[in-house]
């Protein structure tokens, strides 16, 4: 039962990923070619909703529904890791036209060959875990 809410939130996100068209390779191409506002509009609106939430939580000291203090600690900043990892992710994003959420959504949509991309992404994550102590961060 504890996980039901996560499953429902996931279903919601899966529907929204398909309907907002962000899982389309062509949309990602359009974005990197500056030919359409669609992806920029989607990202900007999403960040506006997220940032408003964070501001309201901070201003009114809002709690989560179980009464606990909401954790708003940002991710640590590893200068080299964020830059180099970011670039490598960008290379992959332009090739597959999908970031991790859309990889799952494409498979669910019936675009089954993307299963191979997902397995490959898991292996990429595995490779990172194996060599991370030797990488600049």
């Amino acid at each position: 039962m504890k996980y039901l809410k996560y499953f429902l939130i996931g279903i919601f996100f899966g529907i929204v990923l398909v309907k907002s068209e962000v899982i389309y390779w062509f949309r990602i191409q359009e974005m990197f070619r500056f030919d359409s506002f669609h992806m920029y509009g989607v990202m900007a609106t999403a960040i506006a909703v997220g940032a408003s939430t964070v501001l309201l939580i901070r201003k009114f000291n809002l709690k989560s529904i179980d009464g606990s203090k909401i954790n708003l600690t940002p991710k640590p900043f590893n200068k080299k890791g964020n830059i180099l990892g970011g670039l490598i992710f960008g290379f992959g994003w332009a090739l597959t036209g999908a970031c991790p959420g859309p990889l799952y959504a494409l498979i669910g949509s019936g675009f089954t060959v993307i299963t191979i991309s997902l397995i490959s992404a898991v292996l990429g994550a595995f490779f990172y875990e194996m060599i991370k102590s030797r990488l600049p961060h």
Partner: protein
Amino acid sequence: MESILELIKSPWPWYIGGALIGLMVPLLLFFANKQFGISSTLSNICAACIPIKGKYQFDWKKGKWNMTIALGIVAGSYIAANFLRTDGFHIDISEDTIADLQLIGVHSSKELFAPTEIFSWESLFSFKGIIFIVLGGFLVGFGTRYAGGCTSGHAIMGLSLFNLGSLVAVIGFFVGGLIVTHLLLPYLIN
């Protein structure tokens, strides 16, 4: 009721899609006290499937909530793709992008998620298939873990927190994508 379903089935303007994606932030913060992010599921799946010994070992069970969301995404996208779109739906993609892609040899249509001459089981073992499907996926997995997050965790959650590190990562995502799109794509497709 009928008309609500029709509304959901019709194409969504960017601000509706964007606002609902952004809603993941309050949903997870208020109902679960978790920060939105998807890419950590990749590390969790690898830890759950491949036993990693010694200092690389980490507890994937802490990521069960996130992997449950990933399962939900698969179910939700199945529902949306099969029941929540109008017949003959195609995305309203820019004519400039279509023309540019045709110049470098991408001809398949915007009714599909991706060009099938690159993304299909038949092309998987061709040069294109290995670069776009296999290597592309690998770089996504490696890059997000190295950067510490993906479009969800850095671009949406991180920027919502005004986190400088996330901004740097997002600029990295974008520069990487521009390099591949404008400098490499013409050679990789032909």
